[in-house]
């Protein structure tokens, strides 16, 4: 196998940070190619959460004692790290949620259903969204009478940008789009879309679940109003997510969860809200999760998000070339890695994606199969399911080679 000159990251050193990558599966080396579903975690992140519990576990914000001070400092410190990670102006623009899914629902309910939207107001999405950026808007349709419209994709898997000309009108109040598709890998021109949303007076809501882990994000440059992502896909713990919002966007948003910490005053039957972003953090937050996510952001920042992106482009390019040469294997999404993140959906003639995944599993290779929570996109391409491999900082070209060898084995079984 040609050894890469251009792979930028020191993968052996990185692998050494990930305890799980030392393990074997079915007596094989673990080849983890499902980071788009959830990433693995470095020791640093695992230790940070254990350390919280072992040394300074306390509830945040209200405690007057030392432990509580420490916990609050670290929790708010994580907020600062995340703000820096996506170049927000202030930590007050960062809301901790449990997931991208919760973040998007916070906007759908708080800005849509319970917020500013009126019946007949329009929301423009795309057909390539993850279910988490479809279903919340259905709620706004069903319970507030909003009208949903969708931008289609080309056969290559890029947005049909010209459709925005027609779909964006004075009635448009929300324009929502994934920064990066979890199936096609397509990186969408979000800056352009946000600009056009603003031209008609709409806000732009961005699902960055597949982007935040893999490329550098500058919310000020993108000029988006809301942006959502998950910790678990970017080396962080499960159960922690982020919602970025411009101050005026967050101020215009009603809270989703009512409860402790998000209030200013509560009386029988009425209440007033705490300041942004606390207004959106009702209930005891995932303190360990936030702290772990802060350390994950540190880890990625140290690698350099541009290096991460370059590394993944290299692997993806290599994989695309290898796949090109495989008979009976079809890939989906852009072929130009400048337009594509390290997500590779594919199908193999006569072999169902589930069976592909099962057979690869036996070889120690983890990939995903199914609709990838993107059924409308699957319908658009008339596919019941695909297999999907996805790459991250701990993958290298050998992992791609293992995948390709595994695919050949699948083809033998289903010959």
């Amino acid at each position, binding site marked *: 196998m040609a050894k890469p000159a251009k792979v930028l990251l020191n993968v052996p050193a990185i692998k050494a940070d990930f305890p799980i990558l030392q393990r074997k599966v*079915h007596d094989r080396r673990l080849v983890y190619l499902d980071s788009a579903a959830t990433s693995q975690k470095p020791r640093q992140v695992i230790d940070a959460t254990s350390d919280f519990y072992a040394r300074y576990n306390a509830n945040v914000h209200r405690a007057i004692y030392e432990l509580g001070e420490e916990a609050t400092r670290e929790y708010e410190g994580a907020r600062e790290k995340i703000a820096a990670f996506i170049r927000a102006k202030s930590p007050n623009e960062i809301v901790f949620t449990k997931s991208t899914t919760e973040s998007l629902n916070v906007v759908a309910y708080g800005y849509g259903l319970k917020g500013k939207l009126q019946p007949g107001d329009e929301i423009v999405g795309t057909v390539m969204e993850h279910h988490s950026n479809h279903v919340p808007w259905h709620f706004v349709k069903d319970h507030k009478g909003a009208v949903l419209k969708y931008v289609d994709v080309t056969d290559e898997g890029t947005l049909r940008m010209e459709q925005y000309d027609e779909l964006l009108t004075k009635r448009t109040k929300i324009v929502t789009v994934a920064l990066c598709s979890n199936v096609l890998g397509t990186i969408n021109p979000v800056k352009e879309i946000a600009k056009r949303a603003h031209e008609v007076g709409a806000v732009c809501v961005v699902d960055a679940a597949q982007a935040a882990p893999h490329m550098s994000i500058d919310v000020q440059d993108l000029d988006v109003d809301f942006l959502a992502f998950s910790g678990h896909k970017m080396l962080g713990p499960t159960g922690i997510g982020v919602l970025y919002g411009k101050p005026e966007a967050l101020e215009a948003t009603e809270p989703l969860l009512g409860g402790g910490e998000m209030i200013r005053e509560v009386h029988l039957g009425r209440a007033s809200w705490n300041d942004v972003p606390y207004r959106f953090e009702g209930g005891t937050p995932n303190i360990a999760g936030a702290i772990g996510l802060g350390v994950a952001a540190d880890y990625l920042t140290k690698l350099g998000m541009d290096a991460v992106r370059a590394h993944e482009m290299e692997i993806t390019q290599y994989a695309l070339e290898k796949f090109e040469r495989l008979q009976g294997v079809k890939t989906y999404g852009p072929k130009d890695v400048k337009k594509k993140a390290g997500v590779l959906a594919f199908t193999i003639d006569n072999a*169902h*994606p*589930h*069976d592909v995944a*099962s*057979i690869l*599993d*036996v070889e120690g290779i983890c990939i995903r*199969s*199914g*609709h990838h929570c993107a059924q409308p996109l*699957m319908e658009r391409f008339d596919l*019941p*399911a695909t297999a999907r491999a996805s790459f991250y900082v701990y993958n290298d070209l050998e992992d791609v080679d293992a995948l390709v060898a595994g695919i050949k*084995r699948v083809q033998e*079984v*289903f010959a």
Partner: protein
Amino acid sequence: MSATYDLYQEQILDHYKHPRNKGPLPGATLNAKDSNPLCGDEVILHLNLDGSHRISEVRFEGQGCAISQASASILTTMLKGLPRAEVEALNQDALLKKLGIPLSVVRLKCALLSHHVLRLAIGDKKADRA
């Protein structure tokens, strides 16, 4: 490597590549359809009963992985000619035994989809999700 071939035994691959009793059955008395929401596997079952409440005809349609489709095909071979009472008594284990492969939790859902559709077809109200 053995695990691959445990799962994709001759029988499974044969039923997958050459499904028995596959196709529509217009006007069938009992029909049911279900899909596995997480996987997209789909099975449709058509049954006709004769005068003595035996299954006189059975057909399935569907798409999905080898396990789900082979399982549906195998199930149809088990049903032909069976009295209704025995159809009702036919439990998941009977089908799994016939499949004879080791199944993980997720793949179990694939394997049992056809059984679930059968229970829907015979009007079992308590049919759990496969």
